[in-house]
């Protein structure tokens, strides 16, 4: 178990993962993962492709099932499978590598769909809220457009807004900049930094080491389905403890 690096003594765990294992048939994609993320903490998960980092965060919000081990969200156990309205995983929001916006809905409708379906308020109130969030990600003027009319970077900012509109307590990012053209990466990272600075609990799978350096409280390095190393970014980047991490860093930095 790793202790979280925060000043406060009594901070609630947002996510507690213990002994979590995930199999695809015979293949063990995640091997006895232990990880605690405290409320307000920003964790960057990195590692070579196929190391299980995406699988791990997909387990947290129930997009993947797992076969053994435990997952708690704010102290509430979430089983291997989803269970209806009371599932604590409802406190999570997610941003995907390929945006996954709904192509047949406007930007605004993409953002308000889930709050509307969860009866978070009247349409007017939710529209206003969504416009506020869209303003924050600097894309308010595109609210009535369709996703296909936007650039990749714009689409990803909409996807971030859509996740924020559910007012999630934990934000999950699954390689949010990997599908973007290089010149669009920064506009998305800027928004992510901004979101991070607002005190949200974030777990980001990313290869953007600059982002990790800037906002992460801890870096989790995974390889071959295991957590190999957990460290503060300054320690991780300057003096990685394991050879595997050192090798990975030599390739991405």
């Amino acid at each position, binding site marked *: 178990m790793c202790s979280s690096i925060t000043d406060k003594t009594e901070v609630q765990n947002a996510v507690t993962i213990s002994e979590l294992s995930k199999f695809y048939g015979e293949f063990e994609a995640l091997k006895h993962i232990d990880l605690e993320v405290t409320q307000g903490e920003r964790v960057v998960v990195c590692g070579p492709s196929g190391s299980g980092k995406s699988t791990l965060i997909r387990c947290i*919000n*129930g997009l993947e099932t797992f076969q053994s081990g435990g997952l708690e969200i704010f102290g509430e156990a979430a089983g291997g499978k989803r269970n209806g309205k009371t599932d604590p995983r409802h406190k999570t929001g997610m941003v*995907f590598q390929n*945006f996954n916006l*709904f192509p*047949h809905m406007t930007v605004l409708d993409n953002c308000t*769909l*889930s709050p509307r379906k969860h009866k978070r308020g009247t349409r007017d109130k939710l529209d206003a809220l969504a416009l506020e969030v869209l303003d924050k990600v600097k894309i308010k003027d595109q609210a009535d457009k*369709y996703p*296909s009319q936007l650039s990749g970077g714009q689409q990803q900012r909409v996807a971030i807004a859509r996740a924020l509109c559910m007012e999630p307590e934990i934000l999950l990012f699954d390689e949010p900049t990997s599908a973007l053209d290089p010149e669009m990466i920064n506009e998305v990272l800027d928004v992510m930094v901004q979101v991070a600075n607002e005190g949200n609990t974030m777990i980001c799978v990313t290869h953007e080491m600059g982002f990790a350096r800037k906002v992460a409280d801890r870096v989790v390095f995974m390889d071959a389905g295991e957590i190999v190393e957990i460290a503060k970014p300054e320690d991780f980047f300057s003096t990685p403890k394991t050879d595997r991490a050192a090798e990975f860093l030599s390739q991405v930095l």
Partner: protein
Amino acid sequence: MGFDFEYALSIVPQILKALPTTFLVTVLCCFCAAVLAFAMEFTRRSGRILGYVMRFIIDAIRSTPILAQLYFVFFVLPFYGLTLPPMVVGVLGLSVYYSGYLAEVYKAGIDAIPRGQWDAAKALHLSRWDTISVIIAPQMLRNIAAPMGNYFVSILKATPYLAVIAVPEMLGEAFDIASDTFRYAEPILVVGIIFLSLALVIAQLVRLLEERMQQSLKR
């Protein structure tokens, strides 16, 4: 006995009397088949055992002749105490038969939707029904507008089957005229032309609908 153009024109009104029935059966069947296929396709996807059962049912529907199905409902069920009016049997029979095919079309339309759409719906904690009705169905319909339209035309063209169970549709009406006068060329040709015009109208409507859907995608 050559083709009598005047005679052909004179029987048009009598055949057109059956047009409302043909039209009604077509519209009802298109609607029922579309809804039924929707239920069948999403049942097929909803669970393992239910999925296998539904797959068998869909295959069975598609693998038996439509006439056998119609005769079964019309002649065999009354033997077991269930007698339905011909119109009901006809609509039911055609709807079920074509729902089997439409379910396959839906399947292709859903398979073409990127996996990420389901993921996003789940990540936004939408219920299964909301996911299907708001996210998946609209994108599916856009994918399958053309093949679905084909089946609607097929349903129209299958209405003459109902003549065998005494539903007064157009081809049956034409045959009644023919057997009275022993002139076959004119009634059959008239019916053929009417069906052709109807099919062309439907096809054109589908094309317009398709174009509109594509436009909303491009917007």
